[in-house]
C-alpha cells in the first residue's frame, strides 16, 4: 500500500464519481418539492381568498428573503430543538425545494394570470366541467410559459445541492472536498468536479429543451416558434456590424 500523500486523483476517482447519481437524485427530489411548492404557493398567492393569499404571500416572502443557506443551517441545527427530528437528507431536500418553490411560485402565478379571463368564462358558458376546463383550456395555455423558467430552476437546484455537503450529505461536492483534504493538490479534484457539474447542467438543459417541445406539442402549439429571432426581427433592434469599429 502506498502512502496517502503518494496517491493521486485516479485512486479516488470511483469515490468521486459515485457522487454523481447521488447529486442527480437530490436534484430530482428537491425539484419535485420545488414544483409542488411552486404550485401551492403560486395558486395560493393568486387566490381571491385573503385567508389563503396572505399566509401564502408571507411564507413566500420569508423563504425568499432569508437566505437559503441560513435556512439550511436553521433546519439542521434549530428544528431539532422544536422537536422536529428530520434527517439531514429530508431537511436538506425540503429547504432547497421550498426555497426554490418560493421563487417558482411567481412563475406559476404569472403563468395562470396570463390566461385571459374570457377563456374561463367561455368554458363555463359551454358547460365544460371544472376538470376539463383546467386540463384542456387553462393548463395548455399556462404550462408552456412555465417551462423555460423551470429549466433555470432545475439548474439552480442542481447547483444548490452542493450546499447539502455542508449538512453532511455525501454527494459530489462533499466527496470532492473530502478527496481534496487527502490529496496535496486541490486543483485537479475541483477542476474535475466543476466539469462534472457543468456536464450535468448541459444534460439537464438539453432535457428541458426536449420538455419544451413535448409540452408545446401537448398544448397544441407550434414548436417552431422558438426563441431565436427571425431575420425581420433582427433588423429593428440589435447591434449593427460597425458598432465595434470594424
Amino acid at each position, binding site marked *: 500500500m502506498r502512502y496517502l500523500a503518494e496517491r493521486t486523483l485516479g485512486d479516488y476517482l470511483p469515490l468521486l464519481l459515485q457522487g454523481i447519481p447521488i447529486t442527480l437524485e437530490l436534484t430530482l427530489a428537491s425539484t419535485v418539492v420545488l414544483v409542488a411548492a411552486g404550485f401551492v404557493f403560486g395558486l395560493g398567492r393568486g387566490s381571491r381568498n385573503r385567508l389563503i393569499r396572505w399566509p401564502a404571500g408571507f411564507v413566500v*416572502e*420569508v423563504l*425568499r*428573503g*432569508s*437566505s*437559503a*443557506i*441560513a*435556512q439550511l*443551517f*436553521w433546519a439542521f*441545527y*434549530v428544528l431539532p*430543538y*422544536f*422537536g422536529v427530528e428530520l434527517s439531514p437528507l429530508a431537511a436538506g431536500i425540503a429547504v432547497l425545494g421550498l426555497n426554490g418553490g418560493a421563487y417558482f411560485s411567481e412563475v406559476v402565478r404569472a403563468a395562470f394570470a396570463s390566461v385571459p379571463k374570457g377563456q374561463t368564462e367561455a368554458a363555463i358558458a359551454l358547460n365544460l366541467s371544472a376538470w376539463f376546463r383546467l386540463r384542456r383550456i387553462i393548463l395548455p395555455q399556462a404550462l408552456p410559459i412555465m417551462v423555460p423558467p423551470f429549466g433555470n430552476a432545475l*439548474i439552480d437546484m*442542481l*447547483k*444548490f*445541492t*452542493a*450546499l447539502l*455537503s*455542508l449538512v453532511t450529505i455525501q454527494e459530489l*461536492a462533499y466527496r*470532492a*472536498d473530502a478527496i*481534496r483534504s487527502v490529496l496535496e*493538490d*486541490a*486543483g485537479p479534484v*475541483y*477542476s474535475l*468536479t*466543476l466539469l462534472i*457539474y*457543468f456536464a450535468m*447542467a*448541459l444534460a439537464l438543459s438539453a432535457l428541458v429543451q426536449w420538455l419544451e417541445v413535448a409540452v408545446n406539442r401537448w398544448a397544441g402549439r407550434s414548436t417552431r416558434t422558438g426563441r431565436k429571432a427571425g431575420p425581420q426581427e433582427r*433588423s*429593428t*433592434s*440589435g*447591434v*449593427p456590424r*460597425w*458598432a*465595434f*469599429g470594424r
Partner: protein
Amino acid sequence: MTFQWDWGFAFQQLPTLLQGLVFTLEATFFGSLLAFVLGLVWALARLAEVPVVSPLVRLWVEFVRGTPLLIQLYFLFFIFPSYGVTLPALETGIIGLGIYYSAYASEVYRAGIEGVPRGQWEASLALGLPLRRVWGRIVLPQAMRFAVPVLGNFVISMFKESAILSTISVLELIGQANIIGAETARYVEPLTMAALIFLVISYPAARLVRLLEARTGAA
C-alpha cells in the same frame, strides 16, 4: 424536549452578529461592483463577435452559470495559495461572488444592449457621432435603463448568497452565528436572528427594486 427561547441571550449576541453583517455587506458591495464591471466585459466581448474570443467568452459564461458557487469558491480558496497568491478569505469570497454573478449580469447587459432599437444606431451614424459617444451616450444609457432593476435583484441575491462565504472561513453573518452556536451550544437564537437580519434587509430592498422596475417599465 422543551425549548425556551431566550430573548436576553438573543440580544446579547446581536453585536457579534452585526459585526458579521459588516462583512456580509462588504462582500455584497464589492462583489456587486466586480460583477457589474466583469459582466459588461463579457457582454461586449460576446457582442463584438470576434472569432475565437467571443465563442470562448460564451462558453466561459455558460460554464460559470452551470457550476455551483460553492465549488467555485473552494477552487479559488485552495488554488490561489498553491500559485503563491495569498489573499484573505474575504477577498477570495468577493472575487468568487463577483465572477459568479458577472456571468448572470453579462446576459442582462446583452439583452439590454440588443434591445436598443436599430434606429438609435442609424441616427447616430447619420449624425456622424464618434463610436465612443454612440456607446457612452446613446446605447449604454438606454441599455442600463433595462438592466438596472435586474442588477438590483442580483445585488439582493448576492447579499443572501454571501452566507456561503462562511464555508471558506469568512466570519459574516452565518459564520458568526455558527461560531456562537458552537461556543455556547445554543444555535437557535443566533441562527434565527441571522436569518431575521437577512430578511429585515432584503425584504425592503426587494420592494425598492420592484418600485424601480415599475418606474422604468412605465417610462
